[in-house]
């Protein structure tokens, strides 16, 4: 069975995945129960004596000890990696236990990495090294630390860390096994720097956000009302850290009456907070009247908003009057409540929250697991939905939406981690009967059960693509490690560094240098104020990554490719206290054809619409735990998107006429 699952023939991959779950489970149970000797002989059967020795000498890194990370750790141990390092910054939470099978109730609040390592000791035959920390922390994990590994596995839950680890492996030329799951779907992608697409070669979807006008004036979906209740109303009422006024000196007008009006508008909601702070629960009705009657009446006066939309209907005052007398039912979160129940419950729970603030909780924040806050957001959202003729939701539905919960499925994690570690054998070229001749012979894999993309197939496994030349990480920049002594950091000034780089890689006169760690432009053709400052004064240090670009071009049509340098401090001695890497930075030609966008000037008529910036659905409380909510990177969709963008570029109708 195990042998079959490791058969590298791509045609078999689909079939064997059907058996994959089963075989992983079998292997797991068998291995856990058997002695390490028996396991070793299994691995030897698969990779051969010689390659087994190699495997024993390999060091791997697992980034993340959550849903996928736990699985990866178990798999890597069963595969007999010589040394396994595992990093996670997080501690164990109750909600992890359903799938992060190495953890038990008693482990709650313990660090994930060390707890995971303890939990696997009884079936472990590898050297295990756990770290509790953020993998993006350059002090704890400098580039050189990543350099010790033969292969790196990502079991992450956020874009920023994925991008960061991807970039580090691009600096080092180390293979990376990227992976992710979302509900029933998941993917793995081996990344061989310079030879195959990297994580940033395809655009990634960003979390959905909503224009403020939709939230504040014209909601049309339940989620709009939930965002309003959670991000806007709840904070205005109960988050006492919210400032009452911003930009108080900059009104842009001298008309005193006008300034007063703006102030009033900004302060109206703050007045509601004052009601909360009085702890006078007889005034909760005033809040209801203001939010659900007066404000809606005001909106109705702007007739233009309702030309193409269904008009909202202000809440019936009698519902509020009745609510004060109604029996408190405390209805269940799993049922749909009628509007009277919503109003009654809104009043009850506002009282409770008011009391909590009065009793010393100075400021409240929405937390999906804090039932009072959930009930407040749920009732407020539903009353608003009712007003705007939008379907109401149960408290549990609202908990899912407001808490940004995507169900994480243990089986998906197991399948994906299994695929990831199996593919590692091919990446490390340990299967003698199926040698990896070139990196683009390797496969990525993604499942598409939920999205039905693959027409009845559970898994698709396309071959890896070569790097995208337009990729901002791999394609468009060279990279290397700049070595410098502490003395160098304190003595070399910025203009000298620029000269060194310019000379070494033959850049022209006009260049720019940016600290990419925090997006600071340090100097360019129009900006040389800092050139006399030392690198240390420019706040460059070990772990900083600077991007150096040609801003002029060489010989007409071509320009020197940009280079990204990772700053590493060394004890020395170094000539000039600094050493630039021997990287060939090629000249690249720019196509003379101006981008299509250049032609789209002078839009004749712009469509204006009510957009007061963007509200984020909110960062949920578990951004850093692996396995719960993470962006699904869907390969097919991304390709489709890229094609669409290219087409857009040729479209001259930039702005719609009204």
């Amino acid at each position, binding site marked *: 069975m195990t042998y079959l699952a490791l058969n590298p023939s791509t045609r078999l991959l689909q079939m064997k995945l059907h058996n994959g779950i089963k075989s992983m489970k079998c292997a797991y149970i068998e291995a856990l129960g058997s002695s390490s000797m028996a396991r070793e002989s299994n691995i030897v059967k698969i990779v051969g004596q010689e390659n087994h020795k190699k495997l024993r000498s390999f060091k791997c890194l697992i980034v993340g000890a959550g849903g996928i990370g736990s699985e990866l750790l178990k798999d890597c141990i069963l595969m007999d990696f010589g040394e396994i390092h595992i990093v996670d910054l997080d501690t164990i939470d109750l909600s992890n236990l359903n799938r992060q099978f190495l953890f038990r109730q008693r482990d709650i609040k313990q660090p994930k990495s060390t707890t995971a390592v303890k939990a696997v000791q009884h079936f472990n035959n590898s050297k295990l090294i756990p770290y509790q920390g953020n993998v993006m922390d350059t002090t704890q994990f400098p580039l050189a630390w990543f350099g010790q590994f033969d292969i790196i596995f990502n079991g992450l839950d956020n874009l920023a860390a994925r991008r960061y680890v991807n970039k580090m492996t691009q600096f080092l030329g180390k293979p990376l096994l990227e992976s992710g799951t979302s509900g029933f779907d998941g993917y793995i992608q081996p990344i061989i720097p310079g030879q195959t697409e990297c994580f940033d070669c395809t655009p990634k979807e*960003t979390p959905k956000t909503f224009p403020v006008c939709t939230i504040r004036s014209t909601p049309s979906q339940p989620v709009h009302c939930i965002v309003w209740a959670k991000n806007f109303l709840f904070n205005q009422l109960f988050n006492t850290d919210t400032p009452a006024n911003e930009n108080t000196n900059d009104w842009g007008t001298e008309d005193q009456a006008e300034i007063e009006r703006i102030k009033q508008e900004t302060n109206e909601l703050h007045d509601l907070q004052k009601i909360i702070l009085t702890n006078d629960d007889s005034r909760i009705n005033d809040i209801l009247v203001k939010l659900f009657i007066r404000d809606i009446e005001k909106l109705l006066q702007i007739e233009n908003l309702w030309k193409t939309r269904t008009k909202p209907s202000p809440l019936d005052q009698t519902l509020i009057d009745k609510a004060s007398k109604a029996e408190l039912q405390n209805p269940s979160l799993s049922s749909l409540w009628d509007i009277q129940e919503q109003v009654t419950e809104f009043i009850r729970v506002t009282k409770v929250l008011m009391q909590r603030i009065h009793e010393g909780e100075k400021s409240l924040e929405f937390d999906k697991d804090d039932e009072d806050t959930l009930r407040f957001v749920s009732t407020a959202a539903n009353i608003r939905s009712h007003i705007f003729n939008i379907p109401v939701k149960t408290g549990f539905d609202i908990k899912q939406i407001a808490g940004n919960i995507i169900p994480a499925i243990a089986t998906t994690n197991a399948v994906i981690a299994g695929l990831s570690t199996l593919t590692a054998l091919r990446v490390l070229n340990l299967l003698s009967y199926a040698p990896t001749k070139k990196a683009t012979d390797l496969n990525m894999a993604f499942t598409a059960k939920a999205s039905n993309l693959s027409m009845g197939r559970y898994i698709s496994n396309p071959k890896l693509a070569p790097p995208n030349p337009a990729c901002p990480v791999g394609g468009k920049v060279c990279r290397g490690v700049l070595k410098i002594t502490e003395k160098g950091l304190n003595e070399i000034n910025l203009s000298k560094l620029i000269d060194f780089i310019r000379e070494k890689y033959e850049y022209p006169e006009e260049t720019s240098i940016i600290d*990419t760690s925090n997006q600071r*432009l340090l100097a360019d053709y129009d900006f040389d104020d800092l050139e006399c400052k030392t690198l240390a004064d420019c706040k460059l240090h070990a772990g900083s990554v600077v991007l150096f*670009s040609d801003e002029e071009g060489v010989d007409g049509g071509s320009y020197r490719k940009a280079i990204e340098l990772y700053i590493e401090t060394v004890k020395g001695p170094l000539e000039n206290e600094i050493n630039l890497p021997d990287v060939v930075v090629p000249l690249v030609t720019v196509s003379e054809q101006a981008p299509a966008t250049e032609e789209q000037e*002078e839009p004749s008529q*712009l469509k204006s619409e009510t957009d*007061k910036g*963007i509200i984020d659905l909110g960062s949920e409380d578990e951004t850093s735990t692996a396995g719960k909510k993470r962006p699904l990177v869907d390969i097919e969709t991304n390709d489709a998107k890229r094609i669409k963008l290219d087409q857009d570029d040729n479209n001259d109708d930039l702005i719609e006429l009204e």
Partner: protein
Amino acid sequence: MSSLCLQRLQEERKKWRKDHPFGFFAKPTRNADGTMNLQKWEAGIPGREGTLWDHGVYPISIEYPDEYPSKPPKVRFPAGFYHPNIYPSGTVCLSILNEDQDWRPAITLKQIVIGVQDLLDTPNPNSPAQEPAWKAFQRNRVEYEKKVAAQAKQYTK
């Protein structure tokens, strides 16, 4: 922030330097440490000649989110800026600045500022963002024009 965002912003700076419309200015703001913040720019929009807005140069701030250019930048006038389609906070509502409408990653800084300039003299009464300017524009053009003229004077170079 993604590498894409950073590289694109530097590209925008380069493009703007090579070619920007007459009377406009745009530059990244300074960080406290003297470096430049490519994610937050200041710009000046001149009122179009022959319109009520002429002679004024109106200050805006342009903030690029980490997800730029997937997501549009946020453009703001000073709070309380008088215009039917500008929120009391100063935020501009314009279809090309809305992710759900006409924003596309290829839209450049130049197109944005020209779009904003255009909006000044051609407000859209169907999407009110503030009460006073919108009401006056709809019902009392004389008062509207007086206010706009006064504001132009305030922002004269």
